[in-house]
């Protein structure tokens, strides 16, 4: 990524940060990117070369929760440092300019950094009718195609951009689709979650900034460093699952003792995200630690994946009525078969002709 201007190491140096401070920055960045501490020298070497990339952020059918999540991480912190190192050239929710001035900024950033800028998208794209969601009179679909054309890579932030999310939940009234359904000729990375963990958003931005490339992705296009393991496998309550100790209700003794929430519908075993280790609000807690099961918000189509409070091994819909009806149907069909068999027997009996020895003699 050949952006102009000083490298990140040079920028930090100009700010009077020592090599020791730089190494601390690299160590905390490694932790942020969920990379092992042994990667620190590689990160240091990469940051020596890395230059400030231009970022364009587009918001489509979304609730601004993802941007809220990102800005909540934006206390003066490592994330702040990261964001100072990127050039956020367009984000219509955050930027001061609006209307034509804002669009001019987007077009200028696209022109100046053609083929090099990073495109971040939150929200899904309605295909039902272009008028469902527009920005400055441009439909989401057109703006995405136009902006993605010159991007080096696209990051779909949040479950809406990654999978369609809430707008795409049944019956999907706007015909919402994720970014990956439209952009096929660029690397697209999904950073799902409702919202994604703030430091995961900044972590993937840091990864692009550091290595000028997207990290390794899983089958759903998610970065493996953050989405490589299930919540269940990284949960601090996992030992209780293995011991068979479960909370039965939200206020029983098991719940107070912090036992496993599987029976209360926790989706941890089928959900891949970093919540269990990265946690939320500067590492304070995450849903399971707060006593509520995981709802699986970073998995495709989680809105339509059955009740939140039913265990994963349980049926989604009540089956008793249907099974009862089927059993009654079986009984009726069985009775019908019985009548048919009886009729067949009777007709066989009626058609039965007795044969005597004399008859046989005659037949000879």
């Amino acid at each position, binding site marked *: 990524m050949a952006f102009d201007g000083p490298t990140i190491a040079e920028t930090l140096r100009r700010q009077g940060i020592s090599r020791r401070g730089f190494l601390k920055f690299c160590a905390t960045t490694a932790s942020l990117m969920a990379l092992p501490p042994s990667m620190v020298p590689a990160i240091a070497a990469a940051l020596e070369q890395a230059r400030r990339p231009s970022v364009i952020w587009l918001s489509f059918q979304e609730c601004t929760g993802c941007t809220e999540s990102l800005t909540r991480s934006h206390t003066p912190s490592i994330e702040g440092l990261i964001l100072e190192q990127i050039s956020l050239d367009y984000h219509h929710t955050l930027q001061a300019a609006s209307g034509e001035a804002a669009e001019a900024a987007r077009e200028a950033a696209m022109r100046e950094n053609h083929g090099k800028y990073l495109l971040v998208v939150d929200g899904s794209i309605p295909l039902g009718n272009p008028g469902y969601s527009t920005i400055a009179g441009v439909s989401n679909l057109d703006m995405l195609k136009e902006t993605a054309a010159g991007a080096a890579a696209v990051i779909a932030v949040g479950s809406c951009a990654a999978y369609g999310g809430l707008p795409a939940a049944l019956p999907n009234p706007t015909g919402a689709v994720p970014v990956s359904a439209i952009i096929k000729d660029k690397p697209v990375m999904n950073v799902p979650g409702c919202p994604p963990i703030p430091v995961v958003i900044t972590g993937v931005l840091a990864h692009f900034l550091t290595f000028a490339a997207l990290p390794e992705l899983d089958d759903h296009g998610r970065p493996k460093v953050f989405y490589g393991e299930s919540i269940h496998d990284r949960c601090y309550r996992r030992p209780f699952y293995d011991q068979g100790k479960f909370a039965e209700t939200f206020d029983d003794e098991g719940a107070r003792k912090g036992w496993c929430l599987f029976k209360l519908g926790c989706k941890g075993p089928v959900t891949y995200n970093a919540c269990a280790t990265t946690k939320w609000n500067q590492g304070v807690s995450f849903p399971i630690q707060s006593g509520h099961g995981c709802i699986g918000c970073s998995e495709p189509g989680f809105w339509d994946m059955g009740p939140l409070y039913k265990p994963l091994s349980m049926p989604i819909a009540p089956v008793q009525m249907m099974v009862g009806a089927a059993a009654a149907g079986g009984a009726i069909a*069985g009775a019908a078969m019985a009548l048919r068999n009886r009729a067949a027997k009777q007709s066989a009996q009626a058609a039965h002709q007795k044969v005597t020895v004399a008859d046989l003699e005659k037949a000879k």
Partner: protein
Amino acid sequence: MSNLELLTWARGPGLSIALAVCAFGILLRLFEIFSLGRKADLSKAREHSPGSGWRTIVSRSLPPPGLMKRAPVTYIGGYVFHLGFAITLFFFVPHIELVRGLTGLSWPGLPTQVVDIAAVAAILALIAVLASRLSNPVKRLLSGVQDYLAWLLTFLPLLTGYLAFHHLLIDYTLALALHILSVELLLVALPFTKLFHTVSVFISRWYNGDIFGRKGVAS
């Protein structure tokens, strides 16, 4: 279709269809079997033998003398499989949870380590009886497609359940989905194959015992 969507289908429409087919089939066959009836036995009973049917249910569940020597694999494999399968099916806590969710009935489960041993024993026993079926010329001659199908349909839930429980080889979500789907296949096939013996075994044993009792064969 993602793994989670597959699991959702298996837990939702898939389960409803499988249970409905199974319930329909069982009722259909029971009605048919019972309504066929038997010709009235006009001969006088040889010996007064009340409870002969009930005793046969027990006695036929015990190994007859000599079988251990004649068919050790069938004998040991059969017992180990049926016991292991029953323990896994009825005493694994998530299975009890499922029954409780469907019917409200529940009973205490066994520790997962015990269930684990039972499941492994059942899997090994199934492999052993299949090997014996294939290597023994008489058994091979007697076996039809339905026998191998029944074996496969029984084996798959055990295998996928084991993989899911131990997080082996495949992703847990997929393993759980495949486990539930394999059980659904078993449920659908159960009323219409030899697997129906899970329902009819004690009925036919009682009948055999009773009829032989009348004919003077003590049970």
